[in-house]
């Protein structure tokens, strides 16, 4: 072979090796899911890998590789950080590394968090960079998780604060209340003969209001205590129901209530709290029954794919459609204190408990015919 032929052959082989190396290199880089760029400042040429462009939601042909492009896509508030870090990297001749977390606008409009590492690989005689390569990794998921975790921590701390506040407030409110009640009672007793009718009426109102307030404060305290002992375990609603009906035995007998129960499936939950829910719903069904009709209360459950749906159905006075959601608000009542006693906390209580279990509670009703209360517990 002549020298020229040999050189041509060598050239061919080198080109093949180079091509192989390039393919191997691309495989490696693409498989790390990092995008990379190669910026030849001297020749004003920039190369962006397809993976890099994909990070921002663009196909290879949709984005022109240039500094103008990334400066357009980056969040403008993050630009100064990039320039500062780049300056430091250059001035220290590469000793201070450039690694930076920055935000970019995805083609579809949402935010992408990018971790970028850059290296200056060629310098000119004047100490200016002439070639820069860099890798970019999408860390959006990690960042989102971090932000969520931080927010959750904030919420938990706030929640604890509120619980404490409600507890202390309720507790401290009880004391002056007790003073009012006790001294009003003393006054009514000891000054009975010296008080006129108006004064007795005033005292009657004071006592009534104080007792009412005491009930409300106790109810609030109980409400804040819900969920403190968070021990979820397998519980048997049939046994719970049995205990509740036992507790309500005399009430049910007095009002001549008929109870129809279906067998209930076992669930994962908090025993005391679920008991509280049944107690509340059944008491309400009895309380709001029609005066001249035998109260019939039906209790059962429907097992679905992901949840168990319990129901407590009555044939009582019913609830107007407009108020079906309102009744679950704390202290919200539908009737005068004189017609039906109560603090209006019961259903708010139930809602908090059910939501603690990850379920939902709601009511359906036909006024004058009856109401049905449903609640779900995740299976």
């Amino acid at each position, binding site marked *: 072979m002549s020298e020229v032929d040999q050189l041509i052959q060598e050239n061919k082989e080198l080109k093949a090796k180079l091509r192989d190396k390039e393919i191997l290199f691309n495989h490696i880089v693409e498989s790390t899911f990092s995008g990379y760029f190669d910026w030849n400042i001297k020749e004003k040429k920039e190369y962006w890998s397809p993976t890099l462009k994909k990070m921002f939601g663009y196909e290879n042909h949709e984005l022109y590789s240039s500094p103008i492009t990334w400066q357009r896509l980056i969040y403008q508030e993050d630009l100064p950080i990039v320039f500062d870090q780049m300056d430091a990297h250059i001035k220290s001749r590469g000793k201070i590394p450039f690694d930076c977390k920055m935000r970019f606008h995805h083609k579809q409009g949402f935010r992408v968090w990018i971790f970028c590492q850059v290296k200056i690989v060629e310098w000119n005689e004047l100490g200016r960079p002439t070639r820069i390569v860099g890798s970019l990794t999408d860390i959006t998921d990690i960042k989102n998780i971090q932000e969520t975790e931080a927010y959750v921590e904030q919420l938990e701390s706030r929640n604890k604060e509120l619980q404490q506040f409600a507890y202390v407030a309720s507790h401290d409110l009880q004391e002056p209340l007790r003073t009012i009640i006790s001294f009003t009672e003393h006054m009514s007793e000891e000054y009975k003969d010296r008080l006129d009718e108006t004064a007795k009426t005033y005292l009657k109102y004071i006592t009534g209001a104080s007792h009412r307030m005491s009930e409300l404060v106790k109810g609030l305290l109980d409400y804040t205590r819900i969920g403190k002992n968070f021990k979820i375990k397998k519980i048997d609603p049939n046994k719970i129901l049995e205990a509740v009906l036992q507790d309500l035995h005399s009430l049910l007998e007095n009002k001549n209530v008929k109870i129809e129960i279906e067998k209930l499936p076992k669930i994962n939950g908090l025993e005391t709290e679920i008991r509280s829910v049944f107690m509340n719903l059944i008491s309400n069904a009895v309380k709001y029954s029609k005066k001249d009709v035998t109260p019939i209360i039906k209790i059962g459950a429907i097992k679905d794919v992901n949840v168990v749906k319990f129901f407590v159905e009555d044939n009582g006075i019913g609830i107007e459609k407009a108020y079906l959601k309102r009744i679950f608000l704390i202290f919200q*009542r539908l009737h*005068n204190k004189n017609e039906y006693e109560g603090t209006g906390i019961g259903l708010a209580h139930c809602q908090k408990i059910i939501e603690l279990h990850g379920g939902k509670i709601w009511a359906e009703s036909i006024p004058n015919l009856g109401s049905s209360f449903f609640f779900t517990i995740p299976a």
Partner: protein
Amino acid sequence: MNTKQNRILLIDDDEPTNFMSKIIIQKADENSIPSVMQNPKSALNILKNESINIEEIPDLIFLDINMPSMNGWDFLDEYKDLEIHKRKNILLYMLTTSMNDDDDVKSKKYSCVNGFMVKPLTVKSYSQIVNKHFK
């Protein structure tokens, strides 16, 4: 000489409040005649009745906000469209236990509401209304 009587209607479910409001109103102005309705629905039914005499229609209504079942806002939703407004101009003040900013903004949306007052009614606060509207 016949001075005009002012018929005051109190719509509030709370008995002690009504008891006191009546005393205050009569103390502040001898020409004011208070009457009480604990159920806003009943009040609406009376106001809807077309055969009601014009002298029986109240001159001023004190409306409590926080009532069970139909509250003050629910009442206003029905009250504002009544025919009775064509026969007589009825003053209406909303009574509340707290000066909640939201409530004030909300009450401005109803043109039939003349104002907003904090409970309890006092001789002083009621006198201000009497001087403003009835003198």
